[in-house]
């Protein structure tokens, strides 16, 4: 009974409190500048129509993948703020490769996934190598790499892509490599993208890796205490590189559902969705780096973003949703911190109580 209660209080309450706090903060801000918080809540909590629902599902899938990429880093104590850059590089490389039609038919999908993951991993390794061999904080180097990735992608598409209207894009994905989606609403345009299922596969894989395998154990231990990991026989340098590469590989896959599902071409800024990598960090934090948590957090963020499109019509800037999301992250880490401290305290109390009782029992 206590364990169930612990799980509820420790695992579910903080995010709930955080979301409520963030809504409240956003509402107060809107009210402070003469808007109506009621309108805001009404729009956000309205029932989404089928089209918006599809968007939310697909966006949740991509955010989940991004969240997993970030979580892999977090579990090893790496702040891979470069998920955004690796996501851009992976998307760009994948789109160039898929569009070239080097591999024909459905196999092209698989090959493209490999290319995108490899590109993301390679790009992440730059930050990893700099950290391991030059002692550069991965946070700072990855931020620089994010800007470089965006500029490079633009340069490549402009110089090696094709013009479409005023912008440049990669070549279109051949028709025979376009997978069919899941048509869950007969009446609404669009479908759930085939590769959105990638989120489920990666989620289960991530859980198994972290919770069950020796590699996952060593990765976690390194994150909790690099010194203990080293004494236990983990090669921390190699683990840093492996984690960065793995995180980058997953980051490289983030945009693949959208690419194969509907966009079929890559070009910044129109034919690309920048920012998913950054949001992945928030999703991982909110979901506490657990698979189910990440799924829920991704769904929440996708829901907020999906609904925010209707805010314009209520006369509220849709940017407020960024505030909600940011405050949610801040509030949830504070809440986890508070719960964590409380839990350590109660456990220590419980242990000492139990041992006192034993001692008295023994002496009696």
């Amino acid at each position: 009974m206590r364990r169930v209660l612990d799980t509820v209080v420790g695992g579910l309450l903080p995010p709930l409190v955080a979301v409520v706090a963030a809504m409240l903060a956003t509402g107060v801000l809107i009210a402070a500048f003469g808007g109506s918080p009621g309108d805001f809540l009404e729009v956000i909590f309205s029932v989404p129509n089928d089209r918006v629902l599809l968007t939310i599902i697909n966006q949740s899938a991509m955010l989940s993948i991004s969240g997993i990429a970030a979580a892999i880093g977090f579990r090893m104590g790496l702040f891979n703020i470069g998920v955004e850059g690796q996501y851009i590089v992976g998307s760009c490389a994948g789109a160039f490769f898929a569009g070239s039609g080097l591999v024909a038919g459905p196999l092209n999908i698989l090959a493209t996934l490999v290319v995108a993951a490899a590109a993301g991993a390679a790009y992440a390794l730059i930050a990893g190598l700099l950290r391991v061999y030059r002692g550069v904080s991965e946070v700072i180097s990855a931020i620089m790499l994010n800007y470089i990735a965006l500029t490079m992608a633009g340069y490549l598409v402009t110089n090696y892509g094709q013009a479409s209207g005023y912008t440049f894009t990669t070549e279109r994905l051949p028709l025979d490599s376009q997978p069919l989606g899941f048509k869950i609403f007969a009446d609404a345009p669009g479908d759930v993208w085939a590769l959105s299922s990638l989120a489920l596969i990666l989620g289960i894989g991530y859980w198994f890796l972290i919770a069950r395998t020796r590699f996952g154990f060593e990765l976690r231990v390194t994150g909790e205490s690099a010194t203990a990991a080293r004494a236990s026989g983990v090669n921390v340098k190699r683990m840093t590189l492996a984690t960065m590469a793995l995180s980058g590989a997953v980051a490289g896959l983030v945009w693949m559902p959208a690419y194969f599902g509907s966009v079929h071409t890559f070009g910044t800024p129109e034919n690309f969705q920048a920012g998913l990598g950054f949001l992945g960090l928030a999703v991982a934090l909110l979901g506490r780096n657990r698979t189910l948590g990440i799924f829920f957090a991704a769904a929440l963020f996708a829901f907020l973003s999906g609904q925010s499109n209707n805010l314009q019509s209520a006369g509220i800037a849709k940017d407020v949703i960024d505030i909600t999301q940011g405050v949610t992250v801040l509030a949830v880490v504070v809440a986890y911190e508070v719960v964590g401290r409380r839990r350590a305290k109660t456990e220590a109390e419980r242990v000492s109580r139990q041992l006192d009782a034993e001692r008295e029992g023994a002496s009696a």
Partner: protein
Amino acid sequence: MTTIDVEVRGIGKRFPGVVANHDVSLHIRPESVHALIGENGAGKSTLMKILYGVQPADDGEILVDGAPVSFASPTDAIAAGIGMVFQHFMLADNLTVAENIVLGAEKLHGIGDDAKREIREISDRFGFGLDPDTLVERLGVAVRQRVEILKVLYRGARLIILDEPTAVLVPQEVDALFANLRELVTQGRSVLFISHKLDEVRQIADDISVMRRGTTVGTADPKTATKRELAELMVGAELPSPATSESTVTDRPVLRLDGVSVADDTGRDLLHDISLTVHAGEVVGIAGVEGNGQSELVEVVMGMVRAHAGSIHLGEDDITRLSTRAVRDLGVGFVPEDRHRHGLVLDYPLWENRVLGHQTSAPAVRRGLVSRKGARADAQRIIDEFDVRTPGVETSARALSGGNQQKFIVGREMSGSPRLLIASHPTRGVDVGAQAAIWDHIRAARREGLGVLLVSADLDELIGLSDRLEVILRGRLTAQFDPSSVTASDLGEAMTGGEAA
């Protein structure tokens, strides 16, 4: 300088999980050295923090010169004339001696030349030999301690609290410290001296108070009390002895180092030309002032740093270039020097800590997968065999007392019957019960043919437990002693290269 009279009455403090203080009373007379003794975890440090205003007391009162005072922060304690030298020095490495000293007391003499002049003046008066402009990171342990004491004197403290000040010093340095303390008392100050080393206490103290399980259980007169009586008061029994009985040393080497050298990033040798053999059934003790290469010696054997010269053999196997993992797999148990940083993941349950360091071997891991069942069962075995006091294997390591954490680590490292045990400070900061148990386990394993490389700062432990002693000084093995005939003073002189004498 006026004298100070401090009395503590009925102090109580409740903490989750830690032995709290309850009904603690003691009286520190003016111009005296008052020793507070008690084993690790008896609540001495908690009392000190209360007396110095770091933490508030829940009950009781503190009287300074007869008047009750209350300390909300160290500032209040300092204002009342109380200063404290912590066991873990409270110095900022990147700041100079002067900056460390004037910090928080800038109003006295500013932060410029006046302050430096004052520091030189105090330093000269007590023969500390400190230069205000040196960066603290360049200083050795004994000098840092003098900086700490000067810090307290600079603020004009009349009562100086020293928490386990001799733990990191060799005997000659202890003598120098005691001379300094005597000088302080002659000049009108009082000293509260916290220790669990009974010989030292009888040597320096004017009064002795004893703490046990969070409360003061009595006082003693250092001139008449015997070591045995003090131990009786302190732990309710005789203190455990590390002494071993008959020798079990064989002629079968388990660990052999030949001319091993280790360099730091700049190419300077941290270890130079180390040759050393540990035989089956033998405990080889390494004595040395901290920072003379002990950590590197342990790490090079464990494959955590690389030797640039020489070779290391484990039995017949050449392990010079092997990784930590491979070295462990060949049958080496490792009790690291800092259990919180190297030995445990504090927030993990005990069963996951059972896996730590044994990620490649059953029963904790099978075919690349963590076996929860196997790890839980084996963690339970360690808890039973090594008498780890815990509600169960799901309890996080953090919730355990230091002694129980250490017993768990020793138990884990003895799993899978290793050939060699590398033990760094195996009983540092643990209670006497755990200390006795750990010594028993090491002795038992030695009887069964385990070779042990023991690094310790506790000279009694080294002399009692070892079959052979090696002294390490500036990265070289400089002297060898037979523990049955060596004195702590000989050892101390060798450890400092004769400088402290």
